[in-house]
């Protein structure tokens, strides 16, 4: 009996160990990845509001409630305006939702919350999990930097924070559980985007700049803003980051079998993205396939079979979901007619496709139709990009008040541009200069071989995919309910990657590591308080506060851009200044994320951490 027991225990232990190793290698890579993961989750938790922020969230929450009951058709619609909620479509057997890929991921979390909520006070459980993550974060970070005080002090802080939060904990309404489940998977996706960014950059340029890039994505860009806000964008960013990472690994691998494995793995996140948002997946798929095959050392039959097989297998959930939803495996929810007459923005070409339901389209015909529609949308975007500088300015540089947009944002100028949302991206201004200099020095012939190098391959896919996102969405921008131009969310990841590829920036951050860290901490802690003081002193309204951040961001961004360009051209400007400016722009991004979450958009729901609820009420801001 005991021998049987020990044998079973040993095998179970071995099995658990294998699962742990696989998960570990798949998600975090190393302890730095884990540290970033835990730190990011704790950060998101600071301004986690339990509720629906914009109406689009209702449809996803409704979809989850039904999928958790085992059906794709929406029969129970407790959130928002029910079936009228934007993001509800007319499916084959009745109304359906969208983003099924996210919903399926959230189902186990939802069950877990229901189970925990039945036995414990869920509010306390969430506080407990956050505090445990904090203990984990300080322990991992403290051991990585070999500072015992970080481990000890951080753990003590976690216990104090736990006790303080539990003292004010209030019960969580079970009606919020589906929303919480979606928020949790959203935060996981957002933080893993940063982890994959770290691994991608570390794989190409070493750990130090990798850590800086991953941290920047998680703490200083709108990825943090939208982490818990029930939108798909975090997942889009994660899929892109994971695909680029796998691509980079396929080009840095020593053995051919490893190259093949990573090339195949790169197709998995593309397929999963299709499950979430098919059109966005195409924007990643096209550049990835073209560049991968054009630059690969070998495209032998076996390699092709492995890649195609992996991709086809990963697409199974996408096909199955579409089959259930629309009756056609290649027709995703967004191509169906909208359920509500007042449909929001989608890519179905305006809900006029009622005939789609009557005539079953052959798959090939469907694919051709999708491709044509898609190419025409992209073409429209290209035209707009080259003929409408005013629009480019309003989307990328300076936003301010636009009546056409503001009237749907409650007459408030709460719309930022890409640069205002993520001023750190300004450093990318030096990229064309650096590229130009490089070509002049090395000649055009060197360019060909450089494009086949690991960095060249990833650069090309990142650039092409980023441009395609711009082309697809630009004709619809600027638009309301964006705050940070969330349609172009991937640019924040790709931009940070691009930043890490700019030699001047990379060298400044890696050489002046301490300056970078100190300047970032100083900006957030001191600068953040100054912002609060100024805004409180002038009794700023919501739009004023958001625009104040925009101007601060632009000021910091201009300095960084100027430094990066000059430093790329000549070594006479000090490198340390660049490290400080990168941190100031990153800090400006972080301050906006924190204050917007804790103050400006606090109405999105009750804070998961009760102490933050108190802080939010105590701060004298909008």
């Amino acid at each position, binding site marked *: 009996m005991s021998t049987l027991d020990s044998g079973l225990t040993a095998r179970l232990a071995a099995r658990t160990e294998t699962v742990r190793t696989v998960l570990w290698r798949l998600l975090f890579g190393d302890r730095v990845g884990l540290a970033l993961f835990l730190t990011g989750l704790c950060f998101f938790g600071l301004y986690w509001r339990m509720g629906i922020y914009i109406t689009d969230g209702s449809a996803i929450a409704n979809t989850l409630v039904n999928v958790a009951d085992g059906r794709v058709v929406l029969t129970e619609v407790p959130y928002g305006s029910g079936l009228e909620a934007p993001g509800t479509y007319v499916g084959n057997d009745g109304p359906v939702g969208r983003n099924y890929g996210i919903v399926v991921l959230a189902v186990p979390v939802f069950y877990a919350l229901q189970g925990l909520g039945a036995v414990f006070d869920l509010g306390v459980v969430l506080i407990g999990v956050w505090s445990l993550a904090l203990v984990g974060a300080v*322990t991992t970070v403290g051991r990585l930097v070999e500072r015992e005080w970080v*481990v000890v002090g951080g753990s*003590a802080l976690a216990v104090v924070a736990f006790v303080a939060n539990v003292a004010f904990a209030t019960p969580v309404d079970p009606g919020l559980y589906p929303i919480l489940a979606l928020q949790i998977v959203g935060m996981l996706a957002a933080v893993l985007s940063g982890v994959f960014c770290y691994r991608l950059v570390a794989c190409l340029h070493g750990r130090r700049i990798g850590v800086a890039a991953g941290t920047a994505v998680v703490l200083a860009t709108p990825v943090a803003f939208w982490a818990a806000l029930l939108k798909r964008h975090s997942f889009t960013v994660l899929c892109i980051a994971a695909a680029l990472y796998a691509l980079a690994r396929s080009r840095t691998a020593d053995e051919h079998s490893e190259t093949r494995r990573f090339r195949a793995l790169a197709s998995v996140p593309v397929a999963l993205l299709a499950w979430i948002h098919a059109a966005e997946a195409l924007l990643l798929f096209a550049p990835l396939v073209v560049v991968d095959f054009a630059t690969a050392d070998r495209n032998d039959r076996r390699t092709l079979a492995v890649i195609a097989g992996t991709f086809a297998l990963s697409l199974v959930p996408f096909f199955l979901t579409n089959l259930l939803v629309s009756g056609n495996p290649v027709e995703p929810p967004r191509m169906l007619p909208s359920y509500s007459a007042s449909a929001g923005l989608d890519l179905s070409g305006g809900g006029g496709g009622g005939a789609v339901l009557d005539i079953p389209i052959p798959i090939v015909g469907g694919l051709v139709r999708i491709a044509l529609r898609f190419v025409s949308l992209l073409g429209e975007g290209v035209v707009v990009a080259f003929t409408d500088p005013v629009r480019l300015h309003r989307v990328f540089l300076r936003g301010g008040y636009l009546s056409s947009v503001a009237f749907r944002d409650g*007459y408030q100028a709460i719309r930022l541009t890409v640069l205002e949302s993520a001023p750190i991206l300004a450093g990318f201004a030096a990229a064309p200069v650096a590229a130009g200099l490089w070509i002049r020095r090395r000649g055009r012939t060197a360019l060909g071989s450089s494009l086949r190098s690991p960095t060249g391959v990833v650069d090309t896919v990142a650039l092409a995919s980023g441009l395609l996102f711009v082309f697809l969405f630009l004709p619809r921008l600027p638009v309301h309910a964006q705050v940070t131009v969330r349609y172009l969310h991937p640019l924040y990841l790709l931009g940070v990657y691009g930043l890490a590829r700019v030699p001047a920036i990379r060298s400044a951050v890696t050489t002046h590591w301490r300056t970078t860290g100190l300047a970032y901490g100083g900006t957030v802690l001191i600068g953040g308080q100054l912002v609060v003081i100024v805004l409180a002193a002038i009794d700023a*309204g919501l739009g004023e506060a958001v625009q104040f951040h925009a101007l601060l961001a632009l000021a910091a961004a201009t300095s960084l851009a100027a430094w990066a360009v000059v430093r790329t051209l000549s070594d006479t400007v000090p490198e340390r200044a660049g490290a400080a400016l990168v941190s100031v722009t990153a800090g400006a991004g972080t301050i906006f994320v924190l204050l917007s979450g804790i103050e400006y958009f606090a109405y999105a729901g009750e804070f998961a951490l009760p102490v933050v609820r108190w802080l939010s009420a105590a701060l004298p801001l909008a």
Partner: protein
Amino acid sequence: MDLGSSVPYVAAAVILVVTLASGPLAIADRPAEQPTQIGTGSVTISDVRLPETATLRQGQFGEASYYVQVPPATVVFDGIEGRPILTYKLEIAALGYTRESAFFLGPDTGERMQFSLERDELPPEDVRNDSYAGVLRVVERAGEESRVVAERNVTVRVRR
């Protein structure tokens, strides 16, 4: 290093134990129902102090909308019966604009109360004059009926 290696485990254990002990607390935590229905009863008021002016202030830093800013009103009660509702309301007839906030009174309400109107926004296209005539009111609502408790004509200044 010994301390550093055991502290996280102790911290984690404390957090876990308290979290797991929260089950029974969850049941005790449920909020009690309010017995009396709100919006019923009556209030006698001894004094209402309404501000003289309100402001339409245009936003800064690129925010072009106007903020409707109304100083608070002070209401002094003689007696409150049941759970009546008072509203504080601004009307600017020339702009077709009204805004009001409701205040729920009850046995816990003190002798006096400050009524404030939350900040609101008006689009820049709508605001053309340098000032507007407005009316501030405190109104008692009981069921379908409403009774004006206090009223004052105010000047709404526009600050650009």
